[in-house]
């Protein structure tokens, strides 16, 4: 049996004993793209953080890369929301991407040619090789997001977790990120992507998990993204428009 990238059974997660999200069942294998969709405040970030044991597991069983979530730290790549980072921090783009190699490098060992190559490849992949020596904060929001993606890629993870990677991202960067994500999943990396943008979800997902305080639906995109499940998850009217795309209207 192929090993699972992610296996959640009846999971509840939260903070300080207070559940934020309940009833999560997930099964993700190598090369699959899972999109976590739901409105703002649905618990998407909490769920992603739970995959690294950074939020409290209040019930159910969870394994990530066949081990307890906290043990998967450093093995899974993680792309945080750019907005949480200090734009004025004096680091170069290259230094940021090199952070993705820290697991191999440990605390001391100087970077070797292999590490530098991995960094160059990752930067090249997101189309920012020419920005390596720029200061991170001097880039646009979309470019910063691509740098953080490159950092995760530099660690060559088997599982990649992205928290709202398309928030405040320009069209060029969004296209670049989507292309890279398709490439890495084709190469066998499992992906978890959170977004509140259903159009992106539909475009990118193999599997989709619709959450808002609890899991409302999960499975292949076509079966899961229905007007009915959306109405329940968003608590409002979901209207299907002619071209097959869904628009959610807040009640």
């Amino acid at each position, binding site marked *: 049996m192929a090993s699972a990238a992610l296996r959640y059974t009846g999971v509840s997660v939260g*903070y*300080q*004993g*207070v*559940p*934020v999200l309940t009833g999560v069942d997930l099964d993700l294998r190598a090369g699959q793209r899972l999109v976590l969709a739901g409105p703002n*405040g*649905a*618990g998407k*970030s*909490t769920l992603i953080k739970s995959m690294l044991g950074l939020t409290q597991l209040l019930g159910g069983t969870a394994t990530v890369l066949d081990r307890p979530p906290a043990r998967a730290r450093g093995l899974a790549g993680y792309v945080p929301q750019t907005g949480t980072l200090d734009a*004025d921090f004096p680091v170069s783009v290259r230094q940021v991407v090199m952070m993705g190699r820290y697991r191999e490098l440990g605390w001391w060992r100087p970077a070797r040619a292999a590490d530098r190559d991995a960094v160059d490849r990752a930067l090249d992949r997101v189309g920012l090789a020419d920005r390596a020596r720029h200061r991170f904060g001097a880039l646009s929001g979309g470019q910063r997001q691509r740098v953080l993606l490159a950092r995760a890629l530099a660690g060559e993870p088997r599982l990649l977790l992205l928290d709202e990677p398309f928030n405040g991202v320009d069209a060029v960067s969004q296209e670049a990120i989507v292309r890279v994500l398709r490439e890495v999943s084709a190469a066998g990396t499992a992906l978890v992507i959170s977004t509140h943008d259903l159009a992106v979800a539909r475009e990118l997902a193999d599997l989709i998990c619709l959450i808002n*305080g609890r899991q409302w639906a999960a499975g292949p995109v076509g079966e899961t993204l229905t007007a009915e499940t959306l109405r329940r998850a968003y608590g409002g009217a979901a209207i299907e428009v002619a071209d097959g795309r869904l628009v959610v209207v807040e009640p």
Partner: protein
Amino acid sequence: MNWWDDVLHRAVTEVVLVGVLAGLIGVRVVQRRLSFLTMALTHATFPGVVAASIIGVNILVGGAAAGAVVALGVAALSRRPGQDAAAATGVLLSGGFALGSALVATQSGFSRDLSSLLVGSILTVDATDLIVTAVVLAAVTLLLTLCARPLLLTGFDRAGARAAGLSTGLWDVVLLLTVEVVVVTVVPAVGTILALSLIVAPAAAARLWSDRQPVVTGLAVLFAVASGLIGLSVSTRWNVAAGAGVSLAATGVLLASWPIARARVRGDAARSHPIG
């Protein structure tokens, strides 16, 4: 004999006035995370105080002038892109204090005053000090009442405040200058360390008891006055520096409030389910 002639009576009155003042402003300081700035102000008024006493001006005027320079300096430096307010505050703190000590060194016999600057000399307050404190208290109370809304809005939601047409920069300066006036008034009587302690600890303790602004403010004032009185009586009984006694009493109030906060967190957890 007049009631005011007794050293201890004057000290008690000053402690009560200072406690109310510190409690009122402390709520803002804790809310806006201005503790370090307050610390910087207590130290940075030092060159002003020294310079004023060298040239023979009222030391409150000197302290106020130096403090205003620092308050405006921090406001200006931290508004610039890429300037970190904490670093700017630290630079002005050490710079101000070094300037003060350089001025002190040119005078002889000043070191006694220096230590009283740190720990205060509450037992030597005179009628003028009391009047000044009372006037400042009235003015600060008035200001905080009249400007409560804009101050709250700029503190809580800067984008919203700007959208509502408020100048956040201006209101920041108003708050900083208010803190500065309080610090300048309080420091000569009670010292730099006590000033910081009496402004921060009671307000932080009050915040553990409640989330509602009026309740927090009331409790902060109560805690500050109580710490002042406890500290003062400890200091007269066991002959320790009054400033240190009050500061430790304020810390004690905070420590005593700790279990309350834990109990409240549990209660909240049972009642509401935060999301996000």
